[in-house]
């Protein structure tokens, strides 16, 4: 995986990918890829361990969002 992505195994549940966006103020994103295919997206906007938002995505939704974020998805 690329630099700055921290990988953490969550036994029995899946794998967690932590990405620091701006470590000065604690902005970070954690993505849990579940064994069942579900993705849990955690967004932190401060240093607290209380996430600002948590979104649970199906595999299909995750692919869609991934494609848009990656810039490969477009119409016309």
């Amino acid at each position, binding site marked *: 995986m690329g630099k700055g992505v921290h990988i953490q195994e969550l036994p*029995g549940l899946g794998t967690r990918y932590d990405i620091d966006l701006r470590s000065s103020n604690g902005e970070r994103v954690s993505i849990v890829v579940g064994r069942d295919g579900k993705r849990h997206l955690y967004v932190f906007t401060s240093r607290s361990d209380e996430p600002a938002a948590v979104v649970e995505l199906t595999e299909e939704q995750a692919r869609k969002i991934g494609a848009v974020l990656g810039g490969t998805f477009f119409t016309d």
Partner: protein
Amino acid sequence: MHANLIGLGALILVAGLLARFGRRMGLPTVPFFMLAGILLGPSTGGPVAFDHPEDLDMLALFGLVILLFHLGLEFPVEQVLGSGKRLFWAAGAYIGINIGAGLALGFSMGWGTKEAFVIAGAVGISSSAIATKLLIEMRRLANAETPVILGIIVIEDLFLAFYLALLSPILEGASSAGELILNIGISFGYLVALFAVARWGARWIGKVLDSREDEIVAIIMIGLVVLVAGLSAEIGVSDAIGALMIGLVVARTSIRERAERIAVPLRDVFAAIFFIAFGLSIDVGAIGSVIWPVLIAVGITVVTNVTAGLITARLFGLNQRGAANVGLTVLGRGEFSLILATLALGAGLDERVGPFIALYVLILAVVAPIVAANSKYLARVIPDRLLHDRWRYVREETISTACTHLDRIQITETDEDECKECVEIGDTWVQLRMCLVCGHVACCDDSTNKHATAHYEDSRHPLIRSLEDGDGWQYCYEDQSLVREPAGSSRS
């Protein structure tokens, strides 16, 4: 042909509706399945779905087998083995304290030796399903202590196999101590044999199971699973272990993912029937006589879990919040307790064991989510000295590093750009590592001489970092873990 379809349908429907109601309030499902059985059972007033609960035996037993098969199937062997020694210490402490307290409780109730062992297992082994769901619902997947919690409950699952292997011969009874030891030996020998099959025979099993069509895979697989479970019971090892172990075997074959997909809906339905059937067997009238023992057991469970949480936090360098979360998240009891209760019923033990475990599971089902969600209050009263001596994080913050040796860092930068020891013997190296205690620069483990590791073995300086540009990682030899700046914290 005689079959009570109306009763069965009503039971499952009510169980599903009750469980849905429970889920709305954030409660686990298993106790509600059991509750449906209790409410519609022959011993409770009101409508009775099944006059003869034993008509459900076959379906319930199948549910038990599938439940444990699925547990073995999704057991994350690699993740557990890869997580290091500390996790096993933590899980060992957790299991030891809980089972030990359970045994003490079981013996002090004076119901008998067999009963004591069943109760020890029922109060000592937590429900992985409940803990996992709680972590997701409480939005704690990103917390530092979460991998530890998950690791502990997964190791507990494995411990269940050993505990069952010990328990089945004890329950079966033996005329002499020698016979008992022999039976336990057979039980563990069988366990080892199945482990060997899982390790070396999975390829052959995979060949038997594999087919292009899911339908065929499903049928051959279920046939094999039920047969192995039945044979295990015949040998005197519990059917539950057989099912769990064949799950571990299938998990190592090529059809693992398909097997999981096929097993999940089967498990959901038939395991629910198993829990319902257990509820049917509960005599509500008997619950009154076990209220006090149950309340004491719940109290003991809370204390032992918090203690185990503190030990785990010390081992992993977690702070108060982490300690409280570990202790209080693993509080739920469910499927495993009910499996043990069913074993007790089957062996004809003291009649109070069933109602005792039923009430215990029901109370913890309500208590566990509430307590876990409010762990921060416990975190506030845990004194610093119980945790790591040189703890440097504020009490409420849950994020920490996985390494407890960061306080030994003395030096982080160097101008050195060669491995002196390699230069002396005229050798080359792949990458350079630097000791963070004394600044010693040496070659990495991909190099032929592995001087950095040799330096650790000489000096016992635990931490190194990579000197490659942009690598930015540190490694701790003692904890066998990669260390990074804790996410969201620049304090160090």
